[in-house]
């Protein structure tokens, strides 16, 4: 994101305003998609794939600017289970 004056050295993954009307809310882009993909994720590789799928769909439909697309990866054992119990799809 564009740095605040005097804060050029900081980093902040991008924010974006999601939703419509009264439901509009500014969120961190990574957080927004990670939270949406988390419910059904069994393993970290599933979680990442879910995030990528949601981002791709929103970018394709124009709901997310291409300049805001994060590039994510799993460092470590991608087959490890994600904490908690997946909800039914």
């Amino acid at each position, binding site marked *: 994101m564009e740095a605040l004056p005097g804060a050029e*050295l900081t980093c902040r993954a991008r924010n974006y305003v999601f939703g419509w009307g009264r439901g509009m809310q*500014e969120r961190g882009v990574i957080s*927004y998609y990670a939270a949406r993909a988390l419910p059904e994720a069994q393993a970290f590789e599933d979680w990442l794939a879910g995030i990528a799928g949601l981002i791709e769909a929103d970018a394709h439909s124009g709901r997310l600017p291409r300049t805001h697309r994060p590039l994510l990866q799993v460092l470590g054992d991608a087959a490890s289970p994600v*904490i908690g119990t*997946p909800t039914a799809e």
Partner: protein
Amino acid sequence: MPESANRLALLIGAPWRGEAAMHGDVQAFYDVLTARGMSSDDLLVLEGRLDRELALGFLAAVQSRVSAWDRGDVLLYTSGHGAYAPLDAVDANTVDPALVFGPDDLDDPSRWVFWHEVFGALALPPEVRLALLPDC
């Protein structure tokens, strides 16, 4: 390896003045993790105007809780800002990244919490797995 009965999710939201996104981020993760069966006892939230002392105190409290675990799972999620030292670094592999809790702290790394300090403060037992999702 199946998930352990010992589990804990740490949700840290560290907005700068006037920022609302981090609150929504933490709330969303809290809701989703609750839907995944995590109880309120398994979800620890630190959110608001933070500083180094508050953050390290929170991590110390977590460490005291998990220190006796023989195995388990910890998820650490953060939504906030970061920076790195040295400020003139040119090699991403040699920088020391950190959480920064306000724009006034940017020129004073002694007020940052470096990630190596986070891991040191948690001092998780060897068989406790840590998953980290930083949005910063």
